[in-house]
């Protein structure tokens, strides 16, 4: 597939409101060209709203959006060479998937729709199932059909909204690997959403985190891990230790048997160790174990 250098995705102070609820609040992000960018956030954080605004499916209330250098809501040329895999994908079931893809290839302006579709079917791993109707496909094959549909646009940019939701664990890995493979082979910019940090950070080179419509973080997965350190402590009196650590400005959660400390970065670990040493000796609390753990997205967001 032919490639040309095109502008990436840019959001500048984008705001979107549904009634009283702010779905996106002054979000500014840039998606880097030819990189895999993961968009993270819990349900209702504004991920899908952001994706729809990027594609021009819905309007923004304020701010500026550029997709391939154009406003996607006003200028349909912005969506040329942009593939979209919606959350829980759906294609018309009135004709076989291959026919739908050929028609879609014509809409994308393909000069040779049949060849384009055959290539997309092969790349998406849909071969052998292309004559079925969309509704007859399994969840995994539906996802592959949606990927094939996204590929017929000869994409520079591929946008996937929760591409692994509703799939079993094996199929989740396969689909993500397929997207990574496409990013490498086809040199395309991939923006995908998810809510499992481990899954997204496995493949993403850049991560954007949203919470309640606000941008929490944009950077590399390593940096995200740094700010998301968690320390699990087993102690003789976790309740008292928790209270004492809170007095010293640490964010904690405790059970009768253990204590979790949420740090804003790995650089806070020495300060925590020092505090633990002082508090243990001063208040006679026995520390049995201290472990650093990788934060899940949910834990990280809970801490904020």
């Amino acid at each position, binding site marked *: 597939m032919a490639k040309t250098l095109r502008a990436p995705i840019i959001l500048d102070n984008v705001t979107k409101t549904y009634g009283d609820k702010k779905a996106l609040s002054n979000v500014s992000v840039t998606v880097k060209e030819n990189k895999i960018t993961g968009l993270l956030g819990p349900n209702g954080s504004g991920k899908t709203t952001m994706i729809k605004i990027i594609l*021009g499916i819905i309007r923004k209330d304020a701010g500026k959006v550029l997709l391939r250098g154009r406003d996607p809501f006003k200028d*349909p040329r912005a*969506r040329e060479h942009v593939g979209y895999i919606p959350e*829980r994908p759906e294609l018309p079931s*009135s004709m076989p998937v291959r026919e739908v893809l050929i028609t*879609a290839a*014509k809409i994308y*302006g393909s000069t040779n729709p049949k060849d384009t579709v055959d290539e997309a079917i092969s790349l998406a791993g849909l071969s052998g199932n292309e004559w079925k109707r969309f509704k007859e496909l399994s969840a995994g094959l539906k996802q592959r059909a949606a990927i094939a*549909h996204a590929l017929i646009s000869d994409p520079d940019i591929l946008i996937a909204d929760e591409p692994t939701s509703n799939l079993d664990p094996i199929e989740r890995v396969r689909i993500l690997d397929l997207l990574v493979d496409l990013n490498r082979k086809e040199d395309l910019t991939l923006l995908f959403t998810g809510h499992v940090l481990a899954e997204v950070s496995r493949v993403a080179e850049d991560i954007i985190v949203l919470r309640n419509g606000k941008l929490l973080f944009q950077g590399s997965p390593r940096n995200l891990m740094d700010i998301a350190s968690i320390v699990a402590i087993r102690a003789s009196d976790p309740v008292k230790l928790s209270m004492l650590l809170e007095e010293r400005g640490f964010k904690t959660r405790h059970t009768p048997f253990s204590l979790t400390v949420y740090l804003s970065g790995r650089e806070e670990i020495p300060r925590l160790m020092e505090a633990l040493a002082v508090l243990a000796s001063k208040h006679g609390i026995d520390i049995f174990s201290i472990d650093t753990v990788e934060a899940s997205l949910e834990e990280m967001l809970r801490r904020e």
Partner: protein
Amino acid sequence: MSLKRIYGLLSLDLSDTIRPPLLYFMVFVITLLSVVLAYVQLFSTTESLAMNILRPTLLATALFLALRGASGISQLVSNRVMEVYLSYPVSRLSIAIVLYISRVVVPSILLITIPLLAAGIVLEPLVVQEPSNYILMGVSFLVQALFYGSVFVLIALVAKSTGTTSILSLLFYFSYNIIALILSSVSSSVTSTLFRLAQAMSFYMTVYNSLTTNIEALRPYLWEYLLVPSLTLLSALTFILIMSRRFEP
């Protein structure tokens, strides 16, 4: 914007609107109905033939437009195919026009023209005598069908759910016709404004009256000719405007 792209989108959406077997079934039923009606009655004018054939067909067309056309748009929204349409490199205005053509214009033309053609075969010796009146009556019924369809798709944009769209569309259709009937019953004479309004609410009645009456006092006024076509145009433009400027799936 390439016409090829718009045509592609039209084919894609039409494949849903006029997908068999419902379309074949509808065509079979309305053709059979019109042929039987053509055989069991005697006609000596093409306008009375068209009137008798197309009145029951119009009800079937309105049902199709409500249950497949307009609620199909709601279904596109609820099953998120609309998002796929909106992600194509096609302008919103083009998508709105394509949806209007696919969900209203094409089904109306099919369901009005086919029975007209079938009855035209049965009564070919009559139709060839006055084809212009026959076509004119067909066009008048088509305008009425487009009117219902335009209102239905407007309802679909607001309702966004297939069930609500179907119910509200049918409610509109029956209320509209009941109001026309009430206006006609309470009017004092056939020349009163109320009676004229009741007649003008069905564009084909206005056209039929203008083709059949020789009495000057009973001839339709200009506003009677303009009422339904204006409402159709207004509804269609409103649908296209909302769809292209404000609609969010």
